[in-house]
C-alpha cells in the first residue's frame, strides 16, 4: 500500500485508493443532490480491508451496515479544495476549483483479506435484497491495490454475483490499483493483454456490464463492447456512477 502507484509514482498506492473511494462517494452524493438536499436514491456500505476487515464509514456500527446516501453526504471528515481541469467549451481547458470531501484517509496497513471482505459485502447485500426484492440489484465496487492474502477470492465473488432481485443479479465491479506502470485499461472484453495474473483474476471475477451501461457508454464515447466487464486497471470507475440510472440526465454532449 505504501508502494508507489504505477500511473503516478509521486503518489502511494494507498493515496490512489483513498482518492478513488472519496471521488466515488462524492460523485454518488452529487448525483443524488437536489435543490432541497440529498435524495436517498441509494444505500451505501463500505468495507475497509487492510490489516483487518472493518467498517470504513465513521458512525457505521458494523461493516455490513448500509446507510442512506444522505447521511454520508453530511458527514465527511473534512472538505478540501482541489483544482480540476475542465473543457472551456471552446476547445481549450480551464482550471476550476472543486470541493473534494474526504471520508477516508490513506492507510498503508499491509495484508489484503479480500475473501473476507467479499463475504461481508455479500452479507450486507443479502439483507438488502430480501428487503428490496424488486429494486435494481446491489452493485459492489471492489477497489484493491494487491492480491488477496486470504485465499482465492473467486468463489466468494461467484456467490456475491449470484444474489439477485427481480431486476437482475448483483453486479461486482473491480478496480485494480497497481504498482505496474502498464497502460491503464477500462472495461476490457477479454483478459488478453492484461498486465499480470492478478489483473486477469479480477477481470474474471467482474460482472459483464449490463446492456444499458454498454449503450450509455457507447453514447458517451467509452471503448466498450457487449462483452465488456466491469473491470479497470489503474483507472477509476467514476463513469459507472454516472450510469446508475435514477432518471432523466443530461448526456455528455461534446
Amino acid at each position, binding site marked *: 500500500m505504501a508502494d508507489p502507484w504505477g500511473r503516478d509514482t509521486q503518489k502511494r498506492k494507498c493515496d490512489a485508493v483513498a482518492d478513488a473511494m472519496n471521488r466515488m462517494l462524492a460523485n454518488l452524493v452529487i448525483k443524488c*443532490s437536489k435543490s432541497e438536499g440529498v435524495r436517498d436514491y441509494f444505500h451505501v456500505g463500505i468495507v475497509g480491508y487492510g490489516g483487518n476487515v472493518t467498517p470504513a464509514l465513521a458512525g457505521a456500527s458494523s461493516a455490513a451496515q448500509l446507510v442512506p446516501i444522505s447521511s454520508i453526504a453530511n458527514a465527511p471528515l473534512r472538505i478540501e479544495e482541489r483544482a480540476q481541469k475542465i473543457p472551456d467549451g471552446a476547445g481549450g481547458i480551464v482550471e476550476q476549483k472543486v470541493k473534494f470531501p474526504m471520508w477516508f484517509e490513506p492507510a498503508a496497513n499491509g495484508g489484503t483479506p479480500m475473501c473476507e471482505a467479499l463475504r461481508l459485502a455479500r452479507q450486507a447485500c443479502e439483507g438488502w435484497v430480501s428487503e428490496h426484492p424488486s429494486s435494481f440489484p446491489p452493485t459492489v465496487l471492489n477497489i484493491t491495490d494487491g492480491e488477496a492474502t486470504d485465499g482465492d477470492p473467486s468463489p466468494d465473488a461467484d456467490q456475491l454475483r449470484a444474489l439477485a432481485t427481480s431486476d437482475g443479479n448483483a453486479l461486482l465491479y473491480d478496480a485494480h490499483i497497481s504498482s505496474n506502470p502498464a497502460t491503464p485499461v477500462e472495461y476490457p472484453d477479454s483478459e488478453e493483454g492484461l498486465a499480470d495474473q492478478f489483473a486477469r483474476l479480477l477481470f474474471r471475477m467482474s460482472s459483464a456490464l449490463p446492456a444499458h451501461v454498454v449503450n450509455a457508454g457507447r453514447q458517451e464515447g467509452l471503448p466498450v463492447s457487449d462483452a465488456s466487464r466491469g473491470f479497470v486497471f489503474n483507472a477509476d470507475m467514476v463513469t459507472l456512477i454516472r450510469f446508475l440510472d*435514477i*432518471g*432523466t*440526465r*443530461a448526456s455528455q454532449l461534446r
Partner: protein
Amino acid sequence: MRLQLEVLLKLQKAGNAPEDYEDAIAWRIGGPDLSHDGYPLLVAIADGATESSFSGLWAQLLVGEFVQKPFTTLEQMERSVTRCLRLWRKIVGKKPLPWYAEEKLKEGSFSTLLGVQFLAPNPHGVGKWQAIALGDSCLFQIGSRGLVVQFPNIAYEDFGVTPPLVSTDPDYNSRSWVKLACKEGLWTKDDIFLLMTDALSQWATKEQPDRLVWDELLSKDGSISLGDWVDRQRSSGAVRNDDTTLAIVRQE
C-alpha cells in the same frame, strides 16, 4: 367553438413526495396579437431532469416564459432562454448551499420543453397550431380516425434517459440547439390534442397503432382515477416510473 385546456394529471414519481414533482405546465389565453376571443391558446409543458438540481424551477421558468412570450424560432427561443437564465441565477444565488449542492449547481439545471400555440380558426372552422420542442415531451393530435401527428416523432425504443435538454449552461445549449424541432399543422373541431411528458408519451407511442389506446386514456368512466390507472401501468411495467404530466386540449 373554442378550444380549452384541461390538466388531467400531474403525478410525481412513485416513491417520491408530491413536492418532488419536477415537471411543469403553464397555459394562457391571448398573446401580443390577440385578435379573436379565446385565441391564441398557449400551452407549454416541461420535464425537469431528475439528475440536475433546481430543475423543477428551471422547467417552471421555461413554460412560464413560453406562454408570456411565445416563440416559434431558434433565435426567439435563445432570447427567451437567456431571460429565464437571468431569473434562475437570481433565485438560486440567494442562499448558501452545502458542498454537494454547490458542486451540483455547477453542472446547471436541465429540462425538456414543448410549447404549442393554437391560433383562431378561420370562417371554415380550420385553425392553425404551431409547436416547438426540445426533448421528449410530446404533442399528440388525435382526429376522428386516430393519430394525426406525434410531435416530436420519437419511436418507442428511442425514448431514454438522455433526451436533448434546455440547459442553464449556454455552452451546453449551443451543442443541443441542433436537436430543436418545430412543426405546424391545422386543427378542426373534431381534433383532440394531448400533451404528455416522456413516460406517458413512450407508452402511447408503443400502443399508437391501435386506436384503443386513445379510448383508454380519454374515456375514463370514473371507476378509477387517472392517477390510479397510471400507478397500475407503472406496476405492470407498461409506463416508466417517472414524473408524469398529461394535459388535453379540445372543444368546449
